[in-house]
């Protein structure tokens, strides 16, 4: 290949990457820009990406409406369900590798099968069950359902990782004077971080972004999640685009921050799960 062709190839690659970035980042950047514009600037022609007079009025408006409580609700449901799902799923994934669990294959197929059922198909029956159990419209409803959704994924993800860990590592720790639990905690868990974080990230995104389950299982305004609150907000206030975009920014921030913090593990964890799983 000659110099010119290589340059053309480079340029094409660059252009494609730029286009992909615009498609992915464009809406987010536009939302951020809109959330900082005052109402009369939002539909200004020609549109401006950098607001002339940036304002936090929309954010203040959200706070006045109490949206921060929905943010905290979402955070609570997400953290509780993810922590629970990763702990339970990781333990199960470990047990399925290390212990002689009866009907191991059948269990794994069951987990896989459950993952393939569209969760919306289960929504109404689950609601009926929850009403009967008295869990409907309580703080427990969403963590339980989110955890239930994430656990099978966490089991598969961590199982795939634990299967690659040589048994001798734990045995060495046992001989070195540690209990089984300490051996797992000090030797196996540190190595399992990418898999655990990948499972947690999947759970986090699912629970944080969920709308349908949240509207079906919870009615009280003070139990609402952030996505539900934002849709309600839109319904009440019609075309208050500034405030809505401010809500979008708030809702998008946590996943982005988490991804930036853990991106090393996430990319590693996903590729590990896919290659070695």
């Amino acid at each position: 290949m000659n110099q010119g062709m290589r340059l053309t190839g480079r340029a094409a690659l660059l252009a494609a990457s730029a286009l992909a970035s615009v498609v992915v980042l464009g809406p987010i950047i536009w939302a951020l820009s809109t959330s900082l514009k005052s109402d009369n600037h939002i539909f200004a022609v020609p549109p401006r990406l950098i607001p002339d007079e940036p304002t936090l009025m929309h954010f203040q408006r959200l706070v006045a409406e109490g949206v921060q409580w929905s943010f905290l609700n979402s955070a609570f449901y997400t953290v509780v369900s993810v922590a629970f799902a990763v702990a339970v799923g990781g333990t199960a994934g470990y047990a399925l590798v290390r212990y002689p669990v009866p009907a191991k294959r059948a269990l794994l197929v069951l987990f896989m099968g459950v993952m393939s059922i569209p969760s919306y198909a289960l929504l109404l029956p689950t609601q009926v069950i929850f009403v009967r159990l008295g869990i409907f419209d309580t703080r427990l409803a969403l963590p339980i359902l989110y955890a239930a959704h994430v656990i099978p994924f966490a089991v598969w993800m961590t199982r795939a990782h634990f299967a690659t860990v040589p048994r001798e590592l734990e045995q060495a720790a046992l001989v070195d004077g540690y209990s089984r639990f300490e051996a797992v905690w000090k030797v196996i868990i540190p190595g399992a971080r990418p898999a655990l974080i990948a499972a947690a990230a999947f759970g986090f995104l699912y629970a944080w972004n969920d709308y349908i389950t949240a509207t079906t299982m919870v009615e009280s305004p003070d139990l609402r999640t952030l996505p539900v609150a934002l849709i309600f907000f839109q319904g009440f206030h019609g075309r208050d685009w500034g405030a809505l975009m401010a809500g979008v920014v708030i809702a998008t921030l946590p996943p982005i921050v988490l991804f930036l913090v853990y991106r090393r593990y996430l990319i590693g964890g996903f590729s590990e799960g896919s290659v070695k799983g």
Partner: protein
Amino acid sequence: MTPAAVRASRQPDDIPQDAILQGEIQGMNVHSQDIASRAVGQSARSVRFVDVAKRFGSVAAVADVNLTIAPGQFVTLLGPSGCGKSTTLSMIAGLELPSQGHIYIGDRDVTTVPPADRDIAMVFQSYALYPHLTIFENIAFPLRAKRRRTTETEVTRKVTDAARMLGLDKLLARFPREISGGQRQRVALGRAMVRTPTIYLLDEPLSNLDQQLRVQMRSELKDLHQRLGATMLYVTHDQGEAMTLSDIIAVMSAGRIEQVGAPRELYDRPANLFVARFLGEPGMNILNGDIGDGRLRGQGVAIALPPTVKAGPGGLCAGIRPEDLVLCPIPEAELTGVVRTVEFLGSRCLMRADIGDTLVTAFLPAEVTTQPGETVGLKASYPGRTRWFDVASGLAVGH
């Protein structure tokens, strides 16, 4: 004092005297007093297996093992892969529980004691270094176990001591993936040494190293054993390692101990056909035939039976080591056959010849001019070198 401290402070006089003085192993008297006496003053412990068996489902991995290892001995479990030697080691470590029988360390029955409470150290074939810890932390890991309550200054001192002894001083800040195989092997040894255990268990520790390094580490291990005076149990399928390192070798096959003894004893007086064929490179030539006229007679075989050997109903076969065969004129020959190959090895030649339908190997002087296709006569260099085995039981009956 904690139980561990009490145990550590005990003097060797709590080791059963019979274990030291007799070294009784499966009824064979092993001369181990000199080896045991070397361990006096150390905290070395004896290991005793009583009727130990291990089954995985319906498969018997280890059957009927009775074995006593005197304090301070270097004992090797030698056998082909799948013979149960690693399982035996795992049972001493407590990583596998025996299906039956008892295991004693010193005079304490440890059959069901968790690995952490056995005061043993183990070096794994894969080294099993902790990938997320530095070399320093890997070696320090056993000291950081709660039950040991080692102070930080002591940890540093012990780790640097062990590292210096093994030439790892400059690698302490690195991670296992950043060092070579031989260095990893040393780290695994360091991790075992750092807490001065009473018994070392070594599971094929050299098998992942290249030939040159293996020979070097072999002598380092031997040296280490002499310096530490600890009881060491070594598992390998490499008879060269077993021969050079061990005070005592236990040859295993199909879950059973075939023979226990000093390397020379096993080599010179194999107790059965398995040991005869397994030890030696190549193994002992086994020659079959019928007994008649005070001789073992077969195709190309005519070996006089010594007066001490009596044939059982199943018949006898003769075993001769390749290095004990010499060329001779055909009328005097015990074995007559056609040469298949002659390999020049430098100091000597390895000849293969078809004696009837048995392929016999013989080490001959380097200067022999024998050619493939030639008919040759062979005999034992002197009659006492021929071992006799009962065909039916496979057991040695004399020499």
